[in-house]
C-alpha cells in the first residue's frame, strides 16, 4: 500500500499504476501456467489492491461512534453487497465491480434549483473538510445488517457549496452509469442510472454522510466507489452509490426502487420495525458475520435504526406507516 501525504494525494493517484501492472502480470502468469485467469484473481483479491490509505483520518467528534459498535469484518462488508449495476447476486459486485475502473476525471455536478450550478472534481470535494471516521449501523431492507467504519464528512458540507433557490425542497441523486461495464436495466429489473432522493432537511442533517472510504482506505468499487451517501437511519438502498449528479428540486424526486414498486419501497424508507415490507416483517434483523450460521446474532430491529434521538424530530407529526 502506497502512503502519501494528504496534500499530494489526488484521486487519480489512488490506484498506483505499479499495483495495476503487477496484478496484470500476476494474472498473466497465472493464466500461462495454470491455464485459468480466474485462479490468478482468486489468489489475489483485486479489491484490496484498488484502494489506498486515507490519511489524516479524524477518529473523534460527536458522530464518530454513536452506538459504540464494533465494526463488522472487512471481508463481510466488501464481499456481500447489493449493487445491482454489477450483478443481482450478493457475491456478484465483489467479483464484477473491481474489474471496472473508476474514471480518473470523476466529477460531481450540482444543479437544479441553485443560484449557480457547480461541477466539482473528486479531489475538490474530498478537500472540503477533514475526513472523519463514522461507525454506523447499516440495515438493509432485506433484514440483514452490518456495522461499517465509513470515511467522509456530512453531505451538508458539500451542499453548502451552492446556494439553493427558494424553490428547493428536495435533493435528487444519480449514480454513474456505464452500460458497457454494468448490467442493463432489463437484466437487473430496476431503472438505470440509479436515482434516489432526500428531503432537503434530511440531506442537510449532520448524520447524512458523504463517504469516500471505509476501513481506513478509499472506497472499494463494490461498496460504491469513488463516493456515495450513507444515511444510517434509512434502509440501505437509500444510500446511493457512485454519485455523479446532485440536483436540488422542488417536488419529491423519483427513487429507483420506488419506480420499481412504490408500495414496497416508499420515498422515506426509514428503518421501522412497526411497518412491514409487504413480503416480510421488519421486526428482526440478522447481523452478519457473527459465528457459525449467524446464530445468536439475530436481533430486534430498532426504529430509525437506533438513531431516533438524532433524527426522529425530522418526522414529528408524520404518519410513518403512510409515509413509509
Amino acid at each position, binding site marked *: 500500500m502506497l502512503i502519501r501525504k494528504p496534500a499530494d494525494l489526488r484521486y487519480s493517484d489512488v490506484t498506483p499504476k505499479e499495483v495495476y501492472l503487477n496484478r496484470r502480470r500476476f494474472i498473466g502468469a497465472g493464466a500461462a501456467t495454470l491455464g485459468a485467469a480466474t485462479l490468478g484473481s482468486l489468489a489475489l483479491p483485486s479489491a484490496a489492491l484498488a484502494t489506498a490509505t486515507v490519511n489524516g483520518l479524524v477518529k473523534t467528534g460527536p458522530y464518530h461512534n454513536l452506538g459504540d459498535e464494533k465494526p463488522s469484518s472487512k471481508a463481510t462488508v466488501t464481499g456481500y453487497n447489493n449493487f445491482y449495476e454489477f450483478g443481482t447476486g450478493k457475491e456478484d459486485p465483489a467479483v464484477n465491480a473491481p474489474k471496472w475502473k473508476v474514471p480518473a476525471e470523476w466529477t460531481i455536478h450540482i444543479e437544479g434549483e441553485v443560484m449557480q450550478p457547480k461541477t466539482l472534481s473528486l479531489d475538490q470535494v474530498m478537500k472540503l473538510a477533514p475526513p472523519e471516521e463514522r461507525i454506523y449501523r447499516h440495515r438493509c431492507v432485506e433484514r440483514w445488517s452490518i456495522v461499517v467504519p465509513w470515511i467522509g464528512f456530512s453531505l451538508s458540507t458539500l451542499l453548502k457549496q451552492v446556494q439553493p433557490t427558494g424553490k428547493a425542497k428536495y435533493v435528487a441523486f444519480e449514480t454513474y452509469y456505464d452500460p458497457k461495464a454494468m448490467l442493463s436495466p432489463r437484466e437487473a429489473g430496476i431503472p438505470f442510472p440509479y436515482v434516489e432522493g432526500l428531503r432537503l432537511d434530511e440531506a442537510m442533517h449532520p448524520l447524512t454522510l458523504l463517504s469516500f472510504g471505509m476501513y481506513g482506505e478509499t472506497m472499494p468499487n463494490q461498496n460504491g466507489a469513488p463516493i456515495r451517501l450513507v444515511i444510517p437511519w434509512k434502509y440501505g438502498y437509500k444510500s446511493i452509490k457512485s454519485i455523479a449528479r446532485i440536483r436540488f428540486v422542488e417536488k419529491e424526486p423519483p427513487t429507483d426502487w420506488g419506480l420499481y414498486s412504490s408500495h414496497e419501497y416508499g420515498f422515506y424508507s426509514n428503518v421501522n420495525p412497526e411497518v412491514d415490507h409487504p413480503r416480510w416483517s421488519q421486526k428482526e434483523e440478522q447481523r452478519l458475520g457473527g459465528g*457459525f450460521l*449467524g446464530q445468536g446474532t439475530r436481533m430486534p430491529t430498532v426504529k430509525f435504526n437506533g438513531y431516533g434521538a438524532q433524527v426522529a424530530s425530522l418526522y414529528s407529526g408524520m404518519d410513518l406507516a403512510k409515509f413509509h
Partner: protein
Amino acid sequence: MNRFLSSPWTKVVVFVLSLVPLGVLLWLCWQAYQSADPTEFVTANPIEYITHYTGDWTIRFICFTLCITPLRMLLNRPQITRFRRMLGLFAFFYGCVHFAVWLFLDPRQNTIPAIWEDIVKRRYITIGMLALLAMLPLAITSTAGWVRRLGFKRWKRLHKLVYLTAIAAVIHYWWLVKSDIRLPLMYAAIVAVLLGYRIIVWMRDRKRKLSDPRAPQPTASTS
C-alpha cells in the same frame, strides 16, 4: 442402453447423485463450523444462502421428476419410469429441508403467531407452502402398497398434483425475487415446456379417440 437403464446399479447411481447437493451443503457447513471465522462460509449470510440453495434444488428435482414421462415417450424407453418415484421423493426431501431452514432460522421472531402471520400475509410463502403440501400426499402414497390400495387409476389421478406443485413452486420463486426475474423466468419456461408436452399428448389422444372410438387405448399415458 436398455440394459443400462434396467440395471439395479443405475438406481443406486441416481440415488447417490441425488444426495450430492446435500453432501456439498453439509461439507460447506462443516468447514464453516470448523473455522472460527464466520466469513469462511461461501457468503456472509449463510442462512440466506442455505435457504436459496435448498429451494433451488427442490425446484430442480421437481423439474427432473417432470422430465421422466416426456423422456420415456420420446425415447420410447419404459424403463425410465423406474426413477420417477426416487426423484419425486428427493424433490420432497429438499423441499422439507428448505422449509425447516425457513421455519427455524429465518430472521423473524420464532413464535407460532409470527410464523403463522408470515404464512398467511406473505403470498410467496403461502404459495410455497401450497407447493410443499401438495407433495405430501404424493410422498405418502409413493409405495407400491398405496398404488394397490388406491387402484392404479385413482393413484395416477392423485399424482397429477405434482403439476400444481410445479406451478406453485415457480410462482413462489417469481414472487420472492426482488427485481431480477431471470431465474424464475427460466424455471417458468422449463415447467411450461414440460406441462405443455403433456397437454399436446393429451389433446392428440383425445382427438384420436373421438375420431375412432374403437381405436386401441392411447399408447402413452401422461402422469
